[in-house]
């Protein structure tokens, strides 16, 4: 491979790589605002100027291709002088309103100002004023004065979202960003511009002014919006999830996620209608009971139905571990063949970017662990309406809302046991309601549409969660035991992961298990389910692994 020298280091590079890319391979981070690894090169911020021997002028490292024998200096006197000059230029018209800016704490401009700027300005003139608080679309707010005109957002819309919705208008230091007349920034991926904006010019209307980012803890997880399984981070303060952001995974979602996933998959975690503690229906009303009481009630009820009279309904919203345990419960206690998960296909809701039509994050995982990919669900419900099946055990699904045509039949069931995160139409008519932990409160794995198994992790504490054993990440507020400390002061929900609840029921059934942690359970799964053989939580890691399965086999028995 050809080589160039960067700061005295010999660096091998692929032909076609630019200096900034070649430098990154050996950990030299050349400052940059407008350059983004997944967007075209615009070369406008000029902060990545470097000195190249034998070149008369400094060159921008984002656009200059590496060449054999090239000698680059990223910290020479000339380079530093230019970098400082550019930083000074960028800051002269910037409002420097970090104390009230949402970006503060994760702002590239702020970081570079500390790292690469002289710390004071020679600019004593009136700053250029521009529009502030402009709603560019339903989810994104724009502050023209903070904008440094790097054009990342414009390029993102055109190149990634495939919809040119933003443009520069005006010239010189009057340049600002706008949508086209009568149009909004409303593409399904619009909020990614708030992530890639290197300053606080584009902020999330949903999150802005909710928290300083340094007061949040970040936990790696997987988006629950569809079967793509975009890698995300859950940002938590005071035991509440306040926002989701995409996490880089080149094999899945690159740097992006859709607005739907970002906005609509976490609000139920903090919602008022969370189910808190196990409940039994007595005399027409629900009574909160202890877990042990709930377990014995469940097992004594379950024993009363023959294999033809009971069905178990798993879920693509539940983890591999949860569905595996449900299948185990069905087999052990009832021996029934009636076991399936609820399909959630929304035709036309997918695209060629990230979004898929399957709105569950783990239908493939549920199928691999014993569900039938939705093939028998209608049949089961038909038997329910014929009153041949008289008992249902449902995890993490709102059957009544999903199948309104069977609502009456479900109401007539002799036994309905439901695991649920939030109250819904099905929990209302259930006989036993078991509070299940949301995806933000448990460890587990999910298999995406491409057969990639990935991990979710707890970010929010429940009464059941163990801060140390579960490896929860800490925010600054937690560390110092402030009044926002999520362990000490927060209201915690009494909920447990579905797999753990079923372990409890099986234990009440007399089948004791040594398993206490999700990763131990996964060891058992890996031993019993061929698709997961040889895999454990460590090998899945942060980026997931692709399962060795026949990927052409559709989860739903038909091509997606």
């Amino acid at each position, binding site marked *: 491979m050809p080589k160039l020298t960067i700061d005295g280091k010999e660096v091998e590079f692929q032909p076609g790589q630019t200096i900034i890319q070649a430098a990154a391979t050996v950990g030299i981070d050349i400052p940059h605002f407008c350059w983004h690894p997944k967007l075209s*090169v*615009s*070369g*406008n*911020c*000029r*902060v990545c*100027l470097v000195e190249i021997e034998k070149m008369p*002028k*400094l060159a*921008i490292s984002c*656009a200059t291709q590496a060449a054999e024998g090239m000698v680059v200096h990223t910290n020479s006197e000339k380079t530093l002088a*230019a970098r400082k*000059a*550019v930083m*000074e*230029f*960028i800051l*002269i*018209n910037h409002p420097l309103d970090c104390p009230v800016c949402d970006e503060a704490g994760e702002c590239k401009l702020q970081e570079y100002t500390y790292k690469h700027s002289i710390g004071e300005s*020679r*600019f004593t*003139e*009136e700053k*250029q004023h521009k529009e502030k608080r402009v709603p560019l679309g339903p989810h994104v707010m724009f502050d023209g004065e903070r904008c*440094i*005109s790097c054009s990342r957002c414009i390029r993102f819309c055109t190149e990634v979202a495939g919809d040119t919705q933003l*443009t*520069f208008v*005006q*010239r*010189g*230091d*009057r*340049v600002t960003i706008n949508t086209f007349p009568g149009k909004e920034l409303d593409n399904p991926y619009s909020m990614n511009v708030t992530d890639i904006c290197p300053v606080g010019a584009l902020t999330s209307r949903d999150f802005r002014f909710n928290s300083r980012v340094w007061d949040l803890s970040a936990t790696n997880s997987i988006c629950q919006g569809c079967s793509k399984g975009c890698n995300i981070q859950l940002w938590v303060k005071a035991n509440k999830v306040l926002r989701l952001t995409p996490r880089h995974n080149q094999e899945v979602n690159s740097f992006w996620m859709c607005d739907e996933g970002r906005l609509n998959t976490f609000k139920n975690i903090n919602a008022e209608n969370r189910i808190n503690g196990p409940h039994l229906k007595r005399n027409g009303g629900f009574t909160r009971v202890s877990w042990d009481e709930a377990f014995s009630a469940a097992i004594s009820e379950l024993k009363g139905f023959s294999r033809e009279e009971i069905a178990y309904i798993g879920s693509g919203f539940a983890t591999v571990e949860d569905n595996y345990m449900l299948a185990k419960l069905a087999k052990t206690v009832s021996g029934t063949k009636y076991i399936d998960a609820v399909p959630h296909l929304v035709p036309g809701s997918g695209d060629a970017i990230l979004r898929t039509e399957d709105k569950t994050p783990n239908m493939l995982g549920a199928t691999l662990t014993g569900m039938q990919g939705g093939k028998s669900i209608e049949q089961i419900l038909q038997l329910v309406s014929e009153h041949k099946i008289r008992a249902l055990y449902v995890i993490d699904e709102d059957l009544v809302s999903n199948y309104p045509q069977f609502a009456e039949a479900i109401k007539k069931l002799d036994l309905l046991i439901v695991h649920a995160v939030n109250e819904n139409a099905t929990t209302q008519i259930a006989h036993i309601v078991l509070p299940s932990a949301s995806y933000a409160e448990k460890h587990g794995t999910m298999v995406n549409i491409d057969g990639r198994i990935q991990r979710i992790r707890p970010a929010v504490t429940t009464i059941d969660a163990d801060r140390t054993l579960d490896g929860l990440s800490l925010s600054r507020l937690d560390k110092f035991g402030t009044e926002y400390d999520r362990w000490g002061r927060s209201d915690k929900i009494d909920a447990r992961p579905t797999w753990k609840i079923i372990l409890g029921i099986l234990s009440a059934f007399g089948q004791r298990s040594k398993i206490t942690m999700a990763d131990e359970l996964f060891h058992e799964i890996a031993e019993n389910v061929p698709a997961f053989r040889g895999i454990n939580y460590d090998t899945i890691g942060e980026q997931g692994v692709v399962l060795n399965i026949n990927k052409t086999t559709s989860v739903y028995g038909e091509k997606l």
Partner: protein
Amino acid sequence: MERIVLPEIENLHNIDVYIANNGFAAARKALLMSPDDIIDVVKKSGLRGRGGAAFSTGLKWSFMPKSTDKPKYLCINGDESEPGSFKDRQIFEFNPHQLIEGIIITCYAIQAKSAYLYIRGEYHKWVNLMETALETAYARGFVGEEMKKTFNTDFSCNIYIHKGAGAYICGEESSLMNSIEGKRGYPRVKPPFPAQNGLWGNPTTINNVETITNIPPIINKGWEWFSAIGEPKHPGTILFGVSGHVNKPGVYELPSGTLLTDVIYNYAGGVPGNKKIKCVIPGGSSMPPLRGDQLEGIKMDAESLRAAGSAIGTGGIMVMDEDTDLVKVLARIAKFYYHESCGQCTPCREGTGWMLKLLNRIVNGEGSQRDIDLLLSVANNIEGNTVCALGEAAAWPVKFMLMRFRDEFEARVSPHINLEPKNKVHSMRHTVNPIDKVEI
């Protein structure tokens, strides 16, 4: 003295008059030559671009890839947006067919099937004149499919006139291409250069209007004839647009290497009121200004002006007499570049406004010594750090004005020091002390 670009022939804009004066003979001749031979002739003629950079035209053409499946394009830059520059419109008005003929020959030489003539947005009149001329040339079968019959050749090309929307930056070649493509007039990052990646990503050559108008006579009379005119390193005639404090402002076609003082005094009629000259900008507003006492002996060609500490630019000579307020002049120039900075890259976008704000304060008597140093520092921080040459265009006037007329600025920011401005004027009547002998 022979005039090449603007010959002294009445009604030459009329195609019949043009044909009667050997019009389209060069195209006829060129279309029988091989494209490489034409490029060779133009190279040997020594013709250099008249748009500002004075780059060898033949060499530029030879950068066009020979083997490519992509269409090739020619762009003719008639944006003429540099203040002090108003020569191309004379060609549009008085000799449009020679330009058209030059375009045809160039298209053939670089094997382009389409040429875009980009004309400055404010030139409504000249766009109309040029469109009329082009329509006539089409009607008479000199351009388009019909030219195959007219010239009895396999080659044909089309010429499209594209009117700009009034942005200075669109005179920069890559912005010009973006503008033609219907995009925002932002300069492109180079490399890649237009010959590799130009209009719609295809190989493109961009030449100035005056440059291309020189082509037919070179083909007709040969490179030996052309290269013998004026200065050998920058041969031919140059259209000098003389403006400012002269009695007869206008466009003068003179051999390269003509003395600047000759242009001003012999052709442009000298300075009104027979005043002394304080400052001359020799090549359009972005070129370094010369002091009055630097003018003697300066020849008007690229090499001589570079040696004198300036540049030929577009040949727009701006003359300022002894009563000119250069602080105000510089503030006005800075205002232009501030207004015209496209805003794409940081140093120019932010720096032009900063320089203007500083200069406005100095003009208003609110400046300080610190502001002058700061102004110079800002100019230096812009220079060389931008996407396109507008950075230099904005920085150079500031830098060189301060370098060559610093005492005028010093006097403005320190009113308590009553400095008699040093005599830095040139005069035909007497020679003053050169500035380097004057203690500041």
